[in-house]
C-alpha cells in the first residue's frame, strides 16, 4: 500500500485476491475497490490502515496505460459484480452472502448443496476482473490460478483447505474451507491496546510453524511474502490460520528479479530489491509482532523505523526476551535475522518455558554507570576569605579567580600555590579574562581592573558608574563589558580607554559573545542586543519576557542564550528573531555551551539540558534536584557543571548519564574551567577546587 503517484506504477496495480471471512466493508470503503485511477495524477497516500485495495503488482509496463477518467464511488460499486443470494454455481454451491471484497476478488459464504442433510458452509472466492487492460487481467488470472494450485498441494492446520476450483460464465472460482474467526487486525482494533505477550506468543509460535512448513516446501520453498495482521485469522481458541495466498509463490531461485509485492510497513527492505527469501517472512512476522505488542501501526510510521520505537518503551509489560526475539527478526540485514522460522519458534517456546534459547541470550548489558566519588581525585584546593561567586580562568599554567573578599587571586594551576592577589575596592562577582599578559576583571566597586598576569601589578582601571557583574570578554585588543550603570562598553585592552559605549535601560549582567562583526549580550531589560563591534551601533535587539543574565554563545549562525522567562533561546544571529526556543521549569541563569551538534544549559528547575543545536530537540536532561546557575563546560565528551547542592557534576555529554560528582562545602555557582584534564571550580565554601575525574 502506500501512495503511488503516477501512471507507470499505479496503472498496473493489481490488488491481490483477498480472503475468506472478512465482512464486506461499508459503502465508504467500497471506493477502494475502484481500480486505481490511471490518470496522470494518481499519486496517493494510504489513508486507512484497513485499506486492502492497494496491494500492488507493479510491473514496469512498456507504455503507461491510457488515462481513464476517475470513477466516482457510485460508479465503482456498480462495477463490482456481486452475485445475488441464491445463485447456484456448478449446480452445487449456493451463494449465501458476500463476506469480503478484496481488490480483485469477492468472497462469499457459500453452501455446498451436495451435502443435503447437513449444512456445510464454504468460502467461495470469485475472481473479479475489473482491470481495464488485458495484460493486467492475464496477470491476475495467473495469480489466481497459482493460488489455487498452490493451496491444493499444501496440508497444514494453519492453511485453509481447497475443495474445488472451476470456471463458470468466464469467471474463476475457488472453493475453500470457511475459516470462522477474525483477523488479527480486527482483533487489535477491538482490543484497542497492545495485546498481551502471552497471547501474542501462542500466535507467533503457530505462525512460525506454518511459515516453517512453507519454507521447507519441496521442490522449492514457498515464501508467503505478505505476512501482516490482516492476513492472519484467529479461530476459536486462539488457533491461527493464514489466509490470502494470492501472492505467495514458489520461489524460483533462477528468477532473480522478482516483482515488488507486499504491504508497506511490514515488508522487509530486500523485498524492494526484488529479493524474496524465507528471511523476508521472518522480518514481516517481526513487524507483525511489533504491531501487536505495541499497537503502533507501522503503515502510519516512517518505513523501517521499528528500532526507533522500542517495544518495551511503548509497552513495559513485554519481557526482555520477547523484545530481543522481535528485534532480531527485524534486522535490516537478512543474515542477521533468525536463520529460519524454526529457530525463531524455538526462541519463542523458550520464553514460555522460561529458559533462554540460544541466540536470545544476549541480554543488554546493564548501563554501566560508574557512580560516586572513588574515581574523583582532589588535586588541590585553595581557601579564599569569602564566597567564590564567579568562575576561574586558567591560562599559561596559572589560575585566576575573583573572590567576594575583594581580591583577584592568581594561583599555580598545577599545585594550587598562591602567586599573587590584587585587592579591589569591592567584592568580585565578575569572572576574570586573560588576554596576552593581562588579567582583566570587574568589581562591585564599579571598576574594570587590568593586572599584569605574572606579577599582579595594576596596568589600568576603567571606571563605570555602578558595580560590574558582567565578565569581560576580549577579542583583538578590545574588552567588552557590561555594567550595572546600564551601559555596554568596549574598552581598549592595552590602555584601558573606552572605544564606545551603548546605553540600555537596565543593568547589564550578561557577558558578551563576540563574532568578527558584532557582539551579542543580554540585558536586565529583557533584551538581547546585537551591536556592531566597531562602533557599538545597534544591529538588532530581541525582547524576551524577563531579564537576560545568561551569557550568549554564538555557533553557526545562531545565538544561544537563556532568559529569566524560563526559556532557552536560539536566535538568528542576523535577524535576532528566535529560530527556536525551549521552555524549562524555571529561570535560566546558566550560560549555554555548544559542543559538537549539541547545546547544553543548566536550569534553576534543577535539570541540565542537552539539545540538538540546530532544531532545539531535547537530546536528554539530567535531574540534579537543586538549582543550576553554573554554566556547563564540555570537554572530551564530558559535561562539567556545579549545582546549588554543593556538588560538581561530570556527565557523559552524549547520553546525560552521571560519570562522577564531587561534594564541596557549599553551593557551586561557579562555572568550571578545564585545562589538561583538571577541572577547576570555585565554591561558596570559599574554596577553589582542582579535581581530576
Amino acid at each position, binding site marked *: 500500500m502506500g501512495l503511488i503517484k503516477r501512471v507507470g506504477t499505479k496503472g498496473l496495480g493489481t490488488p491481490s485476491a483477498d480472503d475468506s471471512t472478512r465482512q464486506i466493508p461499508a459503502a465508504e470503503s467500497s471506493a477502494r475497490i475502484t481500480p486505481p485511477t490511471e490518470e496522470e*495524477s494518481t499519486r*496517493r497516500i494510504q489513508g486507512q490502515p484497513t485499506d486492502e485495495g492497494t496491494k500492488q503488482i507493479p510491473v514496469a509496463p512498456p507504455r503507461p496505460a491510457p488515462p481513464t477518467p476517475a470513477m466516482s464511488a457510485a460508479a465503482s460499486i456498480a462495477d463490482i459484480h456481486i452475485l445475488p443470494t441464491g445463485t447456484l454455481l456448478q449446480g452445487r454451491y449456493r451463494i449465501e452472502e458476500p463476506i469480503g471484497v478484496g481488490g480483485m476478488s469477492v468472497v462469499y459464504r457459500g453452501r455446498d448443496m451436495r451435502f443435503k442433510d447437513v449444512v456445510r458452509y464454504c468460502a467461495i472466492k470469485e475472481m473479479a476482473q475489473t482491470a481495464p487492460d488485458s495484460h493486467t487481467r492475464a496477470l491476475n488470472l495467473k495469480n489466481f490460478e497459482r493460488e489455487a494450485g498452490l493451496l491444493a498441494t499444501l496440508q497444514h492446520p494453519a492453511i485453509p483447505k481447497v475443495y474445488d476450483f472451476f470456471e463458470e460464465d468466464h469467471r474463476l472460482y475457488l472453493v475453500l474451507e470457511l475459516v470462522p474467526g477474525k483477523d488479527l487486525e480486527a482483533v487489535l482494533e477491538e482490543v484497542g491496546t497492545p495485546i498481551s505477550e502471552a497471547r501474542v506468543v501462542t500466535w507467533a509460535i503457530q505462525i512460525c510453524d506454518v511459515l516453517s512448513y512453507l519454507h521447507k516446501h519441496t521442490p522449492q520453498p514457498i515464501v508467503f511474502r505478505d505476512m501482516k495482521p490482516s492476513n492472519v485469522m484467529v479461530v476459536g481458541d486462539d488457533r491461527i490460520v493464514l489466509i490470502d495466498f494470492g501472492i505467495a509463490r514458489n520461489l524460483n531461485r533462477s528468477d532473480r528479479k522478482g516483482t515488488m509485492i507486499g504491504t508497506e510497513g511490514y515488508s522487509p527492505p530486500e523485498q524492494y530489491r526484488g529479493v524474496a527469501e524465507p528471511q523476508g517472512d521472518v522480518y514481516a512476522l517481526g513487524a507483525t509482532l511489533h504491531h501487536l505488542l505495541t499497537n503502533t501501526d507501522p503503515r502510519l510510521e516512517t*518505513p523501517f523505523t521499528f528500532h526507533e520505537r522500542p517495544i518495551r518503551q511503548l509497552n513495559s509489560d513485554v519481557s526482555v526476551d520477547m523484545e530481543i526475539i522481535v528485534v532480531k527478526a527485524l534486522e535490516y540485514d537478512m543474515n542477521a535475522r533468525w536463520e529460519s522460522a524454526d529457530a525463531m519458534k524455538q526462541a519463542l517456546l523458550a520464553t514460555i518455558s522460561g529458559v533462554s534459547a540460544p541466540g536470545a541470550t544476549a541480554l543488554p548489558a546493564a548501563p554501566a554507570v560508574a557512580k560516586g566519588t572513588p574515581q574523583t581525585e582532589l588535586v588541590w584546593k585553595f581557601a579564599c576569605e569569602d564566597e567564590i561567586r564567579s568562575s576561574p580562568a586558567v591560562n599559561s599554567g596559572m589560575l585566576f579567580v575573583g573572590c567576594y573578599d575583594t581580591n583577584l587571586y592568581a594561583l599555580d594551576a598545577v599545585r594550587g600555590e598562591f602567586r599573587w592577589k590584587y585587592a579591589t575596592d569591592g567584592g568580585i562577582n565578575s569572572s576574570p579574562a586573560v588576554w596576552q599578559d593581562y588579567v582583566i576583571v570587574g568589581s562591585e566597586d564599579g571598576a574594570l581592573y587590568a593586572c599584569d598576569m605574572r606579577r599582579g601589578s595594576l596596568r589600568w582601571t576603567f571606571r563605570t558608574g555602578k558595580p560590574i557583574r558582567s565578565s569581560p570578554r576580549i577579542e583583538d585588543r578590545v574588552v567588552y563589558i557590561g555594567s550595572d550603570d546600564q551601559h555596554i562598553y568596549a574598552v581598549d585592552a592595552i590602555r584601558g580607554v573606552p*572605544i564606545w559605549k551603548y546605553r540600555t535601560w537596565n543593568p547589564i549582567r550578561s557577558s558578551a559573545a563576540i563574532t568578527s562583526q558584532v557582539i551579542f549580550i543580554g540585558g536586565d531589560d529583557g533584551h538581547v542586543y546585537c551591536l556592531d563591534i566597531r562602533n557599538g551601533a545597534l544591529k538588532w535587539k530581541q525582547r524576551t519576557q524577563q531579564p537576560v543574565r545568561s551569557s550568549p554563545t554564538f555557533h553557526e549562525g545562531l545565538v544561544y542564550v537563556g532568559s529569566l522567562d524560563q526559556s532557552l533561546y536560539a536566535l538568528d544571529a542576523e535577524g535576532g528573531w528566535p529560530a527556536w526556543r525551549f521552555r524549562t521549569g524555571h529561570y535560566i541563569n546558566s550560560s549555554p555551551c555548544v559542543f559538537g551538534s549539541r547545546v547544553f544549559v543548566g536550569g534553576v528547575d534543577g535539570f541540565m539540558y542537552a539539545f540538538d543545536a540546530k532544531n532545539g530537540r531535547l537530546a536528554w536532561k539530567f535531574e540534579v534536584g537543586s538549582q543550576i546557575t553554573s554554566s556547563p563546560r564540555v570537554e572530551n565528551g564530558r559535561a562539567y557543571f556545579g549545582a546549588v547542592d554543593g556538588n560538581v557534576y561530570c556527565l557523559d555529554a552524549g547520553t546525560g548519564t552521571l560519570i562522577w560528582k564531587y561534594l564541596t562545602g557549599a553551593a557551586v555557582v561557579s562555572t568550571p574551567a578545564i585545562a589538561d584534564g583538571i577541572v577547576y571550580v570555585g565554591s561558596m565554601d570559599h574554596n577553589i577546587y582542582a579535581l581530576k575525574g
Partner: protein
Amino acid sequence: MAHIHQSLDQEADATTDEGAPTTPLSEAEQKTSEGATEAAPTTVPDAAVWWNSSATDDTPLPASIQATPVPAAEEDTPTAPMSLLEIEHARQRLATIAAQVAAAEDEPAMVSELATEPIDATHQLDINQAPALIARRSRQGLAAMAVRDVGRVREMNQDNVFAMITTLPRDGTDLTVGLFIVADGMGGHQGGELASRLAVRTVVHQVLSQLVLPALDDNMNAALQPLMISAVQVANQTIWEAAQSLGTDMGTTCTAALLVGHALYLAHVGDSRAYLFEPGGLRQLTSDHSTVGRLIQLGQLDPSEAREHPLRNQLYRTIGQQPQVMVDFIYQPIGVSSHLLLCSDGLWGLIDTPMLEQALKRSPWPQDTCNELIALANLAGGEDNISAVVVSLPLAER
C-alpha cells in the same frame, strides 16, 4: 526513461553565451582591486565612528604598553586605534571567502578578487571598505526565479512554485528575507493542482502574517522553526479539510525555504527536494519521504537503482492526505554556498546531479538557470510536471 548526460549538455551549451561576459569583467576587477589594495593603507581612518574617551581619561601611554606587539600596532593612532585592524580583518575575511569560492570553482582568476567585499542590506558601510566596495563585481548575489512547466506528457500542471525576496527593517539595519516554495500536487480531477496551490497559498499567508507583518511592526516574537513547521501543518489542515468536503484524496508535497540573512529555515514534506550548491558540489538538504528514499537512507538500495524503481513514487508522507502530518525541519547556514535549488521530482528524477550543477554554474541569472533546467528535463522526456526555484545566494560575511 531517458537520461541526458554530458553530450546533451554540450548542445545546450552552444545555445548560451557562456563565458563572453565573464572574461572582461574579471580583468576589470583585477585592475580596480589592485587599486583598492594600494589605496587601503593610505586611507585616512574615520575617527567619527569611534566613540572617543574624554580628555581626562586619555592619559599618555607608557612606552612599554605601546611596544606590545599587536597587529599593525606601530601605525596605530590614538584617534582611531581600530581602523587598521579593521581593514586587515576585512581583507582577511574576504581572502578566506574568496579563496574558498575560488578553490571550489577552480578558477585562478578569482584569487584577484581579494579586495572585493560581500555586501548586503545588513552591512554597515565603513569608509575603510569603500574602495573595496567600489571595486566589487560579484559573481553571485541575491536573486531568485521560480518556474514551473507542464512537461511533455501531462495535460495539467499540478506543481506550484513561489519565490519572494524582501528586506525587513530591524533596529539598526535591514535584513534580507526570502521565501521559496515548491509544491507537487497529486490526486485526480484537478485535486493535485488545487492541493499544491493551497499549500503555497497557506504557507505564504502564514509567513506574511506571522513574520513579515510583525517584523514591519517591530513586533516579531515568534520563533522561526515552529513558524515554518506550523505554516506547513496549517497547509495540511487546510487541504485535508478541503479534500474532505470535496470528497477527494488530493495531496501535495511541500518544500518551503525561508532565507533570513545567511541562514535557511526549511520545512519539508514529500519528495520535492532542496539542494544547496556548496563549494564541494550540490548537497541535498531534504530527504525524500518515499519508501525508496528511506531504503537509500538505510543503505538497502543504491541511489542508481532508485531512479528506475517501480515504487519510486510511493510517498509515505504528504500534505493534505491525513489529518496530521509530521514536518521535517532543517536549519542550514548558507556559508559560502552559491545557490539554493528547490525542485519537484519532475526535475530531479530526470536530470542527474552533475547536470544540475553545470546548469547552476553556467549563468549568474536564476532565470537562465530555471529555463535551462526545465528545457533539460523536457529533453529527457518531460514525463512529469517540472518545477524549479533557483536562488543565487548572497556571500556570507561571517
